């Protein structure tokens, strides 16, 4: 990607991300009073990650079948409250196994 355009986008991206993290830490030392705002801030992270995962996860691998298998294993391992690393590796290993089987058939 063209260098000057890249740096423009990078600056905006990193700037916004940093300000979001920095401003509350520096400015806001009091507890947020609005219950509605606190509730909104509580739900947003989960909603973001959910929206990013579905349906994009189905197109993240070579085959739809392997993606579904990987998702199923990730959900199962998470329900079992396994560590982040375990869940990621388990799901990736599943994709690897399923795709190997598909290629051999």
């Amino acid at each position, binding site marked *: 990607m063209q260098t000057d355009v890249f740096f423009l986008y990078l600056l905006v991206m990193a700037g916004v991300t940093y300000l*979001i993290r920095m401003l509350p830490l520096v400015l806001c030392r009091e507890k947020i009073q609005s219950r509605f705002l*606190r509730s909104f801030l509580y739900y947003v992270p989960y909603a973001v990650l959910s929206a990013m995962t579905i349906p994009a996860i189905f197109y993240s691998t070579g085959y739809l079948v392997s993606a579904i298998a990987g998702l199923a294993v990730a959900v199962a391992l998470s329900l079992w409250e396994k560590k982040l690393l375990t869940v990621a590796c388990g799901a990736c290993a599943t994709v*690897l196994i399923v795709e190997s089987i598909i290629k051999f058939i």
Partner: protein
Amino acid sequence: MTSRKLFIRGFLDGIPICLGYLSVSFAFGIFAVGSGLSIWQSILVSVANVTSAGQLAGVPIMVGRLPLIEMVLTQFVINLRYSLMSVSLSQKLSPRVKILQRMVVAFGVTDEIFALAISQKEELETPYLVGLITSPFWGWTIGTALGALAGDILPSLIVSALGLALYAMFVAIIIPPAKKNRAVAFCCLLAMALSAAFRYVPVMNKVSSGMAIIICAVASGLLFAAVAPIPEEEEKKDTSMDKAVKT
């Protein structure tokens, strides 16, 4: 405890996060180069941002040269959770952590680092936090570099499997709280349903993916903040205030 010892303790506490980030950022490196960024551009994105979901959503906006405002809005909404974490973290910092130091540690507020920091018993000191950020930061950067470099060399089978890593991590972050709290579970399901609609429903699929995520998250968040507000933590304080108002 000396600064040096605090730093080392933080650094060691951060090693499990570092390892987790290695695999996830490896997948990001592959994704970024696959999207059209060069190797050093991919690494710079990771160094400057240190945020999985934000980077994953930001790279297509960069490469597609979509309007900058879309980058601002996408990063704002996706990373909004960090502001909540920063607020929470600010309550736990030792009085010795001054404004400049707050500005430094703010750079490393991520889901996992926050979770570990907030679980500490004592007040947080700057050297500990800097240590806790350092090891995951290097994991994130080195993983991205390896992914960006190895993406071409690795067999397609492995690349395909790693493509799922980031999403598997998201699943691992949302499922445990969703299991404990039904409102969180339904909020997630709503966001997923909306997101699927933005992909498959004819007119809705014209909306860009970054904007779709914003709409899904804000709509789900607003609805659930209205119908299922989180419990008041300071029940006593509120009732005493109510009494004061009544009398």
